[in-house]
Each structure stands twice: as C-alpha cells, then as structure tokens.
C-alpha cells in the first residue's frame, strides 16, 4: 500500500493544461489597489516581448526564403555567366560570408529601413513599398467595415432567433461564402456590374465608386467567420446570469440586447478580428490583384514577375509588421475593455 501511494504522489503532480504561470500570479495576489496595475503591467510586458520575438522570427523567415531556399546570385546574373563571374558577384554582395553574418547585416540594415535598392527600378525598395502602402491599408479597413456591417446585424439576429429561417439562411450563406474563392467572386462582380450593367468601374483608385466592389469582395470573405462568432458570442452571453437579472428587473428587451448582451459579446469579436487581420490583409492581396488596385500586393506580384527580391522582401516584412502591430493593439485593447484580464481575475 505504501509503495502505491508513493508512486501516485510521484506521478500525479504534473502541471495541468490550464495552469497559468503560477509564481507571477502568486506574487501579485494579496489585494490592494496596486495589484490590478501590476497585473496589467506584466500583461503588457509579456505582449511586447511576444511582439518582438514574432518580428524577429518574421525577419529570419524572410531572410531564409531568399538566402537558404534560393541563391540570390543565380537569380541576379544571366544564366550564361561564367563561374568567376558568379564568385566575383558572390563576394561583392557579401554572400560568401557565413549566413549569420549576412543575416546580421540584413537585420541591422532593415531596422533603419534599408532593404537595398530595387533590382528593377533604381530606387530604394523601402520607398517603393511605402508609397504603395496607403491604398492597401484603406482597402483593408474598408473591407473590415463591410464585414462588420454584414456580420454584426446578421449575427445578432441569428442568435436571437435561433433555428428560425433567418438563422438557417445566415448559416447557409455563410457556408457558401466560405467556399467562394475571393478572386472568382471579384471577377464575377466585374462581369456583372462593370461589363454587363456598366454601373461600376472595374479597376482604378480615384473615387469612392472604385472602393465599392473591392471592399465588398474583401468584406464578404471575412463576414461568415465573424458572423458565426457574433452569433455564438451573443448566444453564450444571453444565457448568463446578469441577463436574467436585467430581465427580472424589468429592463426592456431591446436594452438588454444592446447594453448587456452586445457589449459582452464584443470581446470575442474584437479578439477574432485581431486574429483574422492577417487573413484580411491576405485577402486584400488577392483583391488587389483582381481589381488592379495600386497597393503593396500588386507591387509584390509585379516584383515577383520581375524577380525583384529586395522589393519582395521589404513588402513581406512591412506587411507582416502591420499585422503584428494590429494584433498587439487588439490584445491590449481587449485587456483594457475586459476587466477580467485587467485585474487578473
């Protein structure tokens, strides 16, 4: 018996999947007004560290894609160049040095915005990419707005009238929407609205009309996921005790939904939008190529066709930087909104 018990003790106390890093939590526990602030500060610090690690990882990835998978000299020189020519160029570009030396040089240049000159146009890659950034960002946000305009009302409606025809219709549309390739949707819209009906311009970036089709396309791809999350978020909240309390107090149903349920359902929605932002930007890349939008993505695709690697590298890193920053902002915003994170409860 004794042996059995000893073994049990030896095996069982392993950290469970849900155990939070306990020493930190223990230290701040103990009440007092400083506690919440300490938790928050620690949370922010952890997010910042993660931010830096991810950025470092992305820079390694972007470096590795060109230098480990491919050979820049092979891409730069004509195929019939001689062997000495290759060696000379390799030396000239510093490619004969160890990889970590090259990476360090790449990183220290990248930090100050020096990604080298474009191999195609005689301008710094950084400036080329930066010039094309605003259209991409506008498009992304327009897409986000469209996605929210579609998904918020429909998601709430579907949650309040569960299993009604509205709910079923929403689910069906969402399933169909998730299966629709974004670039095909764009082309179909161009065929219908530009070619047949001649209502909207097929490409361009001058007036608000140019924004309609691309932002709808982009928004329509994000909407199904957001709608499902709004729906499940509202359903979950509607079953909570404080909703019952509000109802029992005699609060009007519309007020219960708007003030009590929706606010709380917002938290998962905001988190998901942050997580989906990368995919949204990925969608913007696809949308840009369909509508010839003058953003970073069209530049990237052009640069890939021209084998212009400094520009591709710079575009990839800057886009990733935008995504990581948005994720950071969303994480912090959620922490400020949600008192459970703020106070570490």
């Amino acid at each position, binding site marked *: 018996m004794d042996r059995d018990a000893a073994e049990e003790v030896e095996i069982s106390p392993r950290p469970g999947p849900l155990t939070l890093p306990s020493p930190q939590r223990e230290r701040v526990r103990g009440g007092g007004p400083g506690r919440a602030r300490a938790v928050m500060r620690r949370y922010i610090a952890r997010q910042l560290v993660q931010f830096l690690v991810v950025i470092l990882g992305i820079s390694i990835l972007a470096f590795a894609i060109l230098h480990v998978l491919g050979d820049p000299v092979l891409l730069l020189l004509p195929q019939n160049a001689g062997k000495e020519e290759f060696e000379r160029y390799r030396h000239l570009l510093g490619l004969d040095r160890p990889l970590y030396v090259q990476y360090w040089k790449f990183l220290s240049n990248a930090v100050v915005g020096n990604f080298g000159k474009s191999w195609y146009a005689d301008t710094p890659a950084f400036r080329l990419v930066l010039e094309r950034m605003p259209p991409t960002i506008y498009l992304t946000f327009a897409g986000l707005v469209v996605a929210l305009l579609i998904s918020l009302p429909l998601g709430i409606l579907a949650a309040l009238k*569960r299993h009604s025809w509205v709910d079923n219709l929403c689910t069906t549309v969402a399933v169909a929407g998730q*299966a629709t390739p974004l670039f095909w949707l764009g082309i179909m819209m161009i065929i219908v609205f530009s070619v047949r009906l001649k209502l909207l311009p097929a490409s361009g970036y001058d007036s608000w009309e140019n924004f309609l089709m691309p932002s709808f396309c982009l928004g329509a791809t994000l909407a199904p996921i957001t709608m499902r999350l709004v729906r499940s978020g509202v359903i979950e909240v509607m079953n909570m005790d404080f909703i019952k309390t509000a109802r029992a107090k005699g609060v009007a149903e519309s007020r219960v939904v708007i003030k009590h349920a929706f606010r709380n359902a917002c938290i998962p929605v905001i988190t998901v939008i942050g997580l989906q932002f990368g995919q949204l930007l990925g969608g913007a890349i696809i949308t840009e190529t369909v509508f010839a939008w003058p953003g970073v993505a069209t530049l990237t695709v052009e640069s890939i066709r021209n084998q212009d690697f400094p520009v591709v590298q710079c575009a990839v890193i800057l886009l990733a930087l935008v995504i990581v920053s948005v994720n950071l902002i969303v994480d912090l915003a959620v922490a400020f909104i949600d008192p459970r994170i703020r106070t570490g409860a």
Partner: protein
Amino acid sequence: MTSLSEGKIDLVTLGDTAPAAARERASLRRLGRVRWGLAAGFVLLLIVASAVFAPWIAPHDPLAVNIRHRLGPPAWMDGGVPAHPLGTDQVGRDLLSRMIYGGRVSLMVGICSVLMSASIGVLLGLTAGYFGGSLDWSIMTLVNVMLTFPFVLLALAVIAVLGPSLVNMIFVLGVAGWPIYTRVVRAEAMAVREREFVLAGRALGMSHLRIIFRQILPNLTSAIVVIATLQVAQVIIAESFLSFLGLGIQPPTPAWGNMLGEGRLYMLNSWWIATFPGLAIFVTTLMINLMGNALRDWLDPHMKL
C-alpha cells in the same frame, strides 16, 4: 431558449435543464447535417471520379486547339454547338474537357499538400504538447510567426524564389499549412497527457515514443481528420489563386486556377471562360466543407474547431 424570440421571461427553460424535446430536436438537426454531409460526399466522389477517369470521360483532348472555333459560347447560347457543351476558350480548346482535367491538378495538390502539412503539424504538435517546456515554447513561437504571416504572402514569397511548378506548389502549400494542426494537436495532447491511462502507461515503463504514438495519437485522430478535410478546401483555393496569378501550374496544362486567369483577359466578351472553372472550385470546396462539418458532427459533436 425559444422563449427569447417572444420577448417573455421564461426562467425555467433558460437553464441547463433543456427539455427532452429540445434535445431531441438538436440531435435531429445534427442528423440532418450528417445527411447533408453524406450527399456532399457523394458529389465529391463524382468530382474525384471524373478527375481520375478524365481520359475516358472528357469529350475532347484538353490541349486540342481549334482556331476556327475559338471563344465559342456554351451550347445553349446563340452560336454554341453541342460538341462543346460549355463553350471553348481563346484558342478553341473545349472548356468542359479542360475543367475535367483541371480537377486532377487541384485535387492532387490539395491531397498531397494536406498530407504533408498534417504530418509536419501533428508531429510538432505532439512534441510541443507532450514534452512542454522550452521545446513547447519554441514550437509555439514558430506557430505564431507562421500564423501571423498570411498564407498567401508566404506562398508568394517562396514561389518567387523557387519558381512555379507542380512540385514546388505542393511543397509550398504543404510547408505553409502545418501550424493549424500543431495548435489543435498540442492543446489536445496536453489534455490527454493528464489522463489516467497515460499515467498508467508511464508507470508500466512505456517509452515516450510509445506513449505518444500508441496512447495519445489515436485519441486525436478524429480532430486531425476533420481539420485535414477542411484544409483540403483551403489548399485548393490557395492553389488556384497561385495558378490564377500565373505563379502556379503553367499553361497549357489545364488547372482551374490558370483557366480562370486566362479567362479574365477575355471576360469582356466571353464570360464563360472565367465563370465555369471558378464554379468548379466553388462546388468542390463547398462539398468538402459540408463533408468536413458533417464529419465533425459525426465523430465528435462537442469538438470545437
């Protein structure tokens, strides 16, 4: 729960004590979804069969050029001929035959890439979830980096260096797609690791490898199968986008994506060239998604994916 729509307070039905009728309705709904999934699986089987038996089914050679019949509309339109039911493309190739052959590329890339990313992702997920510690931290950091990167952007960057080809495409999509498996498998492995039978196995002196593959992995198969199924659809869309840009399958080999890309140039007058291949992508991904959802309901209704 049904009381919410009427705007009345009904505390009795709000709690967990859902009446038996409601529970029955829920399982009927699930059964309905499973039935839809079966139907979707059947359609999918037809699509796969038409791709596999393409040489026997396709009415024409997908590469046979017929300049006199270029940009011919579908059979039901003015100027269409029954020999080309869906019309012809810019050099007079039969669109239907090209679509049937195009399915081969999409399905092959989809299945091969998913097998590849599932193997990588599951192995890393098991490692991270089972061993924990700094190994877990490094793997999950890598996962975070990869998930931050839009799939499309990563694929574009790699294809830019490697150059477009079928093998490169499978490789790129396979390597880009693993993090989603890792994330789910890690979480599940962490939970299963704590179960009694794993502790018993360890007490009996089983090696780590044996515990991982004999005791933990079998518990995760349904989750992996569901993700992999849904992921095939994602890969097919990504593949067709790359081909659409001209960075994937190179013409004249027919693939839904590059047909769509070629069709875009002729969309002013010949809408059918871009429409039908896209429709093929849409139907295939829709069927895969429906089947994946049904599979999830069938294997484990509580699974949260």
